[in-house]
């Protein structure tokens, strides 16, 4: 039987989704796809990640062979230029023509470029395709100032990308009196504006650009209020314009302001022609988001396969991503009193603004806006979409408790099975729960079999909650098993290894695991062994179970070289030692830099040179700084009372004592500390895993702070301690952490997950509520007694030392593929190839 010929014009996100859905459901159709862009459909939603190192392959939605495997003819760089509706054919740019039974427009939209004189100038860009991004990053190299026209969702994303490209002076020009005028209100916009200013973005509101200045290339913007702004480049992000030109040319009905008019079945006024995605105009509306586009593809596929489904409009709730500031709006975000009651929470200090609109009878959540903290977004969206009856204290929805887990946990139980969880893929709560019951018992399986969370990824936290909720409700014990090789949680393994006195990875695998292990369980078990026994980490065959950094006792770097970081306890260093570092760096041609941790890093060492370098450093009295290990990094100090006029105690001596006490101890993740001589806090102790600040009467001890991507201040654990008590508390705190934290969990995250939070932790550490204090203090004492500098052991042990050469069959030769280039009088690694 001859297959029904379908031609898809446009190989973007929605066009691809349509092909995927149709080919998985029916083989009655033969699909032919024309795409104007030179590459297979890619994830435009995450386009900006292209600037953060994702390649076009990483962004691609399919594999190279996918179309072929599904018998779909894909023509890339091949725009359709004409449609003959009478003979049902399309012609492409290369002059060929093709017949269709059904034609699908999935042409998306292009950037809307307002009619400003000078938009054709060099240095003016739009932000829509990978090619646009290539042009932008090429031009950005020589630009020092940049501007974005448009303060909407995409404009903000483009502006952040320009900053990330290294253009420090970036501004946003918006016509309206506020940012993101379609999503957030005045108060929210002000909060967002101040947060964006913190990122270094200049915001110009109420600005109408009248022309673009410059001869040939742009040099500035001129506004209607006669002011001007000098810029080297400009990105226009003023909205989208549906690509309806083809449809218009062949007489298909289009809207007055653009868009191909479709009905509830995505059909145009020609019964053989359909439109889906961002080019389709449904009830006067263009849906510039991916979820409604996917829903349109679903509606069309269902109807083509003889089902019935209609498109009923779509929720335009959105969450801004990437910019490092949470911004979200959902449901009816702008409705105001007297049509509803609003509850607003504002915290200018932390930059948080939340507004929810509830119905006048107090029963339903209608919509809202979240700035600065959108953790509750998913739950609020579900509560409003599913018309869940609110409790008597709806303010709890935005106030929540610290950690917020409890609120979300109880929230999902009340959702109906029909609640749409993953709107990109149209997956409901019921779909997810039944997949779990049918055996998808971890998140990867669940993603594979339901596709939930594979689109924008915004629903993943909720999918995870549903997974554990369903498992628990089936009476299954939910535990964080490590990987397919060990059926235990980290904490269980810790105890088992201890009881059985196992000392090597292989012994642990033989006794407690199965098969051959992998890159997840190996470093984890190696870390447990180190935390428990503190033996040389490269012996007993444990070297091959270590992550690369631990295996070679140095951080592996871009290009394949290694870094060398000797310990400089408390940041205190003698002139002699500084000279040694200088000499060694010179001799082995290493790049040197003062680190953020108050010590000196030497980068760019060849693997073969590491033992030679360390031999010289050790001879001069240095030891390993464990910059590569999951263990103690640095204890920062301020100069304290020995020099500083405000200093209350000798913070340097105390920092050195602490650094030397805990050096070399391995933990679930790295940990850092700091000691400040007074509350001015020059050592930034409150951003550390444990931090100490001098008081009139002793030391205050803070715990569980974190820098990194989710900074969190440390919390006060105990006050006015004498030095020995302070150290005892730290011993207990650290052992409790080492024993109970999940793999690769910093102390801050560990505390956030702990039931009872800091009060519980204080009870355990200070009041010894678990009756473990003595044991833990002894454990630390044992670890300290077995401490040895592992670099000293490595250079002195011939069997270990032998491993520090690149080729086994040419031990003297260095890796010839390592390349450096010059920069400011030192060397640096060549770019990724």
């Amino acid at each position, binding site marked *: 039987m001859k297959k029904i010929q379908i031609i898809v014009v446009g190989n973007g996100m929605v066009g691809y989704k349509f092909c995927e859905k149709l080919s998985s459901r029916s083989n009655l159709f033969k699909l032919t796809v024309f795409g104007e862009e030179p590459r297979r459909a890619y994830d435009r939603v995450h386009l900006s990640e292209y600037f953060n190192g994702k390649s076009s392959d990483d962004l691609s939605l399919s*594999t190279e062979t996918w179309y072929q495997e599904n018998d779909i003819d894909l023509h890339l760089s091949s725009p359709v230029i004409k449609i003959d509706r009478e003979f049902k054919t399309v012609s492409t740019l290369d002059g060929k023509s093709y017949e269709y039974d059904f034609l699908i427009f999935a042409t998306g939209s292009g950037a809307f470029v307002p009619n400003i004189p000078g938009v054709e100038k060099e240095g003016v860009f739009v932000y829509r395709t990978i090619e646009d991004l290539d042009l932008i990053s090429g031009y950005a190299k020589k630009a020092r100032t940049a501007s974005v026209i448009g303060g909407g969702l995409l404009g903000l994303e483009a502006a952040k990308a320009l900053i990330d490209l290294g253009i420090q002076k970036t501004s946003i020009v918006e016509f309206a009196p506020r940012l993101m005028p379609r999503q957030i209100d005045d108060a929210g916009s002000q909060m967002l504006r101040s947060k964006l200013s913190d990122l270094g973005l200049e915001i110009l509101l109420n600005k109408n650009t009248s022309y673009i200045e410059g001869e040939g290339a742009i040099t500035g913007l001129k506004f209607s209020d006669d002011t001007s702004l000098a810029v080297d480049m400009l990105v226009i992000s003023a909205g989208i314009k549906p690509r309806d030109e083809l449809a218009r040319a062949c007489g298909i009905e289009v809207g007055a302001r653009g868009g191909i008019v479709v009905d509830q079945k995505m059909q145009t006024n020609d019964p053989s022609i359909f439109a889906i995605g961002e080019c389709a105009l449904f009830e006067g509306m263009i849906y510039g988001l991916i979820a409604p586009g996917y829903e349109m593809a679903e509606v069309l596929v269902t109807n083509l396969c003889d089902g019935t489904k209609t498109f009923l409009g779509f929720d335009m709730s959105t969450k801004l991503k990437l910019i490092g500031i949470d911004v979200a709006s959902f449901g009816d975000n702008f409705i105001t009193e007297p049509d509803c009651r609003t509850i607003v929470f504002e915290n200018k200090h932390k930059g948080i603004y939340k507004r929810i609109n509830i119905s006048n009878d107090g029963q339903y959540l209608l919509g809202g806006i979240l700035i600065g903290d959108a953790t509750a977004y998913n739950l609020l969206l579900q509560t409003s979409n599913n018309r869940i009856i609110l409790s008597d204290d709806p303010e709890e929805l935005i106030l929540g408790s610290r950690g917020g887990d409890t609120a979300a946990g109880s929230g999902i139980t009340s959702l109906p099975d029909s609640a749409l969880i993953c709107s990109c893929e149209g997956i409901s709560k019921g779909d997810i729960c039944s997949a779990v019951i049918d055996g998808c018992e971890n998140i990867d399986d669940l993603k594979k079999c339901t596709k939930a969370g594979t689109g924008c990824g915004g629903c993943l936290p909720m999918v995870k909650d549903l997974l554990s909720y369903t498992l628990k409700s089936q009476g299954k014990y939910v535990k964080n098993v490590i990987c397919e090789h060990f059926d235990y949680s980290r904490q269980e393994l810790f105890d088992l290894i201890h009881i059985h006195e196992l000392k090597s990875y*292989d012994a642990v695998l033989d006794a407690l695991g199965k098969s*051959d292990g992998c890159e997840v369980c190996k470093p984890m078990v190696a870390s447990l062994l180190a935390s428990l026994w503190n033996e040389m980490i490269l012996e007993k065959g444990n070297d091959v179970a270590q992550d690369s950094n631990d295996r070679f006792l140095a951080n*592996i770097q871009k290009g394949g070289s290694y870094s060398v970081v000797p310990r400089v306890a408390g940041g205190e260093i003698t002139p002699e030692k500084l000279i040694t570092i200088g000499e060694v760096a010179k001799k082995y041609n290493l790049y040197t830099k003062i680190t953020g941790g108050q010590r000196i890093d030497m980068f760019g060492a060849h693997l073969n040179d590491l033992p030679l370098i360390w031999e010289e450093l050790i001879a001069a009295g240095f030891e390993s700084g464990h910059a590569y290990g999951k263990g103690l990094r640095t204890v920062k100090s301020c100069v304290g009372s020995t020099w500083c006029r405000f200093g209350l105690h000798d913070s340097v001596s105390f920092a050195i004592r602490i650094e030397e006490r805990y050096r070399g101890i391995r933990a679930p993740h790295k940990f850092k500390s700091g000691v400040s001589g007074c509350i001015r806090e020059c050592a930034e102790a409150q951003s550390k895993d444990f931090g100490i600040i001098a008081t009139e009467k002793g030391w205050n001890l803070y715990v569980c702070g974190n820098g990194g991507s989710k900074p969190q201040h440390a919390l006060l654990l105990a006050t006015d301690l004498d030095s020995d008590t302070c150290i005892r508390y730290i011993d207990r705190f650290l052992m409790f952490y080492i024993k109970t934290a999940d793999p690769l969990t910093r102390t801050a995250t560990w505390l956030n997950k702990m039931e009872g939070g800091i009060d519980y932790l204080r009870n355990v550490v200070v009041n010894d509520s678990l009756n473990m204090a003595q044991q833990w203090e002894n454990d630390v004492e044992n670890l300290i007694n077995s401490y040895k500098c592992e670099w000293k052991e490595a250079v002195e042990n011939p069997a270990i030392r032998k491993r520090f050469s690149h080729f086994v069959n040419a031990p003297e*030769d260095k890796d010839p593929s390592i390349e450096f280039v010059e920069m400011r009088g030192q060397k640096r690694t060549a770019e990724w190839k």
Partner: protein
Amino acid sequence: MNETSESWLAACKVEDAVENGGVCIKHGDDQIALFYFTRRNEWYATQNECPHKKQMALSRGMIGSDSDEPKVACPFHKKTFSLNTGECLNGEECAIKVYPVKIEDGTVYINTLAKF
């Protein structure tokens, strides 16, 4: 598979290889990663360059298995590759070359005419 005697490279002695881990073999301008999977008593050889960011690093990766398929994880970004077929196990398109290995009289030989 080509089995001419010229294509077999005498790579190293068995005792030079690392148990349950990898070493790197120089082969003219090429680099080959050799893995001694002692737990299974199996040997594997692959290209040393990771196709992801072109880093000469696979020999320094951890080996292990994924539902019994032997694999190596690149130390840079933990992409994993089958040691049998060279296929990338994280669903990426890039694959690595794999070479046959044999042991004779305590010497490890690698057939440098790739299997794939």
